[in-house]
């Protein structure tokens, strides 16, 4: 089989120092006809400069409305192995940590049912099992369930939440991002597996405002760690940084966005009242500076990619929330957001677009949140505001 197939364009991508996906394709192709035909079709795409997949169709497993992306080639004659080539989205463990036992079991299930090709991970965070046939979907899911892996989200549903490495390996986690992710995922299993929302809904969780899961850019709800109170300064370690060659004035003080720091060559001063907790100084001197002790998170809403009305970054809805098990306040807030969006959102209207259409005021009112200057960069510049009933 393998010797008939010529893929000179793909072969070229085995050269070079960065790991080559073509090598993976070939490894899988050596075992699986579907993987081989995938390669063949991809080579064809490289020649034609166009994709060869048909518009997706709806396929799935019993009891779930999502978790599988249907896919069919437009050249079934040439590439019968990919006539059906659906992907399965498998919900990753919080923080993308694995023991090898779990991984090896996954590989076995996938070698049994699919192409042997995966993505670790998809952009949303799922394990992507790349390519199987319709008849394998249910058995594959059953085998996955057996080894403890459930499906992730797709369609107009809650999507698989994801979290940064957080307290597992980061000194800056202001709350337990992994646990919050796990708790949310489990609390909203039905919303995850049974699309019934106006559109997709993404939740991403970062332990601090470095935002290592890019939550603010690509989740309808971003939970981002932060603190109150003073940054703890170890002046000896600050001096050690200076001695180590860091230009504290230029690299730290001058780059502080609120200009709330001072450095006289021996002591770093910091006016915490004016600090906006951007993390810059702490990032540069992790041994010398530590966040304040009262910790929690800000919740931002509305982030999303450009379709339909342009991309949105998440914006501050809840400036501060304490996050400790059992996270009741958080779960209640999420529920309220779901309800309001579900009730008011048009088909394919993301949360941010709905808020833009109705006005943040209505959203805040529905959530029972008090308007605060922290929610905006600056007040409105246009005089088009309301005095309707309910507006204060």
């Amino acid at each position, binding site marked *: 089989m393998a010797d008939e197939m010529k893929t000179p364009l793909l072969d070229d*991508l085995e050269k*070079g*120092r*960065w*790991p080559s*996906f073509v090598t*993976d*394709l070939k490894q*899988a192709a050596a075992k699986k006809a579907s993987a081989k035909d995938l390669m063949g079709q991809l080579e064809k795409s*490289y020649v034609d400069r*166009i*994709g*060869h*997949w048909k*518009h997706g169709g709806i396929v799935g497993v019993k009891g779930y409305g999502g978790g599988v992306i249907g896919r069919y080639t437009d050249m079934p004659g040439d590439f019968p192995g990919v006539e059906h080539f659906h*992907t399965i989205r498998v919900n990753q*463990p*919080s923080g993308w*940590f*694995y023991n*090898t*036992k*779990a*991984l*090896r079991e996954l*590989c076995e299930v996938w070698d049994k049912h699919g192409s*042997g090709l*995966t*993505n*670790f*991970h998809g*952009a949303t965070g799922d394990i992507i099992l790349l*390519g199987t046939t319709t008849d394998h979907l249910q058995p594959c*899911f059953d085998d996955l*369930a057996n080894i*403890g892996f*459930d499906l992730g989200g797709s369609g107009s549903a809650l999507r698989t939440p994801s979290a*940064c490495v957080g*307290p597992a*390996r980061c*000194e800056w986690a202001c709350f337990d991002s992994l646990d919050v992710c*796990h708790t949310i995922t489990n609390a909203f*299993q039905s919303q995850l*597996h049974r699309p019934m929302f106006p559109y997709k809904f993404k939740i991403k969780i970062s332990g601090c405002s470095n*935002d290592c899961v*890019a939550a603010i*850019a690509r989740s309808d709800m971003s939970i981002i760690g932060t603190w109150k109170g003073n940054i703890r300064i170890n002046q000896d370690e600050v001096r050690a940084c200076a001695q180590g060659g860091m230009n504290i004035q230029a*690299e730290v003080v001058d*780059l*502080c*966005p609120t200009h709330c720091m001072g450095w006289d060559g021996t002591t770093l001063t910091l006016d915490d009242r004016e600090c906006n907790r*951007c993390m810059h100084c702490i990032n540069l001197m992790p*041994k010398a500076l530590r966040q304040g002790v009262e910790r929690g998170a800000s919740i931002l809403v509305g982030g999303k*990619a*450009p*379709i*339909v009305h*342009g*991309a949105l*970054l998440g914006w501050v809805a809840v400036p501060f929330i304490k996050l400790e098990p059992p996270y009741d306040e958080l779960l209640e807030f999420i529920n309220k957001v779901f309800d309001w969006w579900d009730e008011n959102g048009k088909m394919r209207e993301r949360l941010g677009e709905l808020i833009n259409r109705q006005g943040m005021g209505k959203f805040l009112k529905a959530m029972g949140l008090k308007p605060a200057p922290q929610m905006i960069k600056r007040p409105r510049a246009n005089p088009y505001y309301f005095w309707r009933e309910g507006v204060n």
Partner: protein
Amino acid sequence: MATRTDFGPPDYREMLPPVIKANYGKWLYHERPQPGVLKHVAESGDALYTVRVGSERLLSTDKVRELCDLAEKYCGGYLRFTSRHNIEFLVSDANLLAPLLGELKARGLPVGGTGHSITNIVHTQGWVHCHTPATDASGVVKAVMDELFDYFGTMDLPAYCRISLACCLNMCGAVHCSDIAILGIHRKPPQINHDIVKAKCEIPNVIAACPTGAIRPDPARKSLTVNEDRCMYCGNCYTMCPGMPVADSAGDGVSIWVGGKVSNTRGGPAFSRLVIPYLPNTPPRWPETVAAVKNIVEVWAKHARKHERMGEWIERIGWERFFELSGIPFAEQLIDDFTTAPETYRTTAAFKW
């Protein structure tokens, strides 16, 4: 037997190595002993070494097993992946660090991606699995990373430089907030297949999907028409309706965006901005795209101050200066004409020559 459902993901606690369990939430600080290696020190004094390895993301089960072998040999059988799809080996025994690095080198698994490096390119499916791509994903990424490889294994850049790729305007790679974004674009309006539209599509939903209001009903045919003058080929109608394909061998290609950012540090999160509206699809190595990305990285690396991300640098010097320094010609498409346009106009007489 009813299938078991809604049991959720595996418990992350089962996936954590002992050193992490013991020091969970009690890390004190970290260092970067060398590119690709992090050392986290806990209040207890315990240290954890993380070795970050570049990944093609599209992994065969064989490759996953190779990673498991290594994790078992050096890390007690634990590993993780990062939010940018790299692999992280979690080494609790300092003595195993050097051997691991040695074996990684021997196997051609690149170590890097920490600090002021260029780490993995977040990307999407492309021609490998999606139905709407305007370019491939994995191939472009491979070509670009081969060229930028030295930046992966060093930390000498002014700041972080996050590169992302999405193969169509859906932007699954969330490229819209990247230091450099590579975005597949179509350049031809949908070719309507009226039979499919009639049979399979919900007319009002397709109409609502068009950001520019280019789609009108065609009641006579029970189909749709597209005002080609208003269509900017986003492909959202195709997402809703298979009768409206936009992909086109000759028209499709790549655009380049710069200056986005996610972290809240200093200037805060920002969108990437269009600087090159079109480069051709030239598999297998997309040389025009590779050259464009490399040029931007190098111009930035040369001129930016320490800790200045791409966008922070450009906002300091001004976009007029960026175009001059990068040699990128200023194309008309760069001027916004969507609903957000007024925000982008120069509403001051203060600008640089």
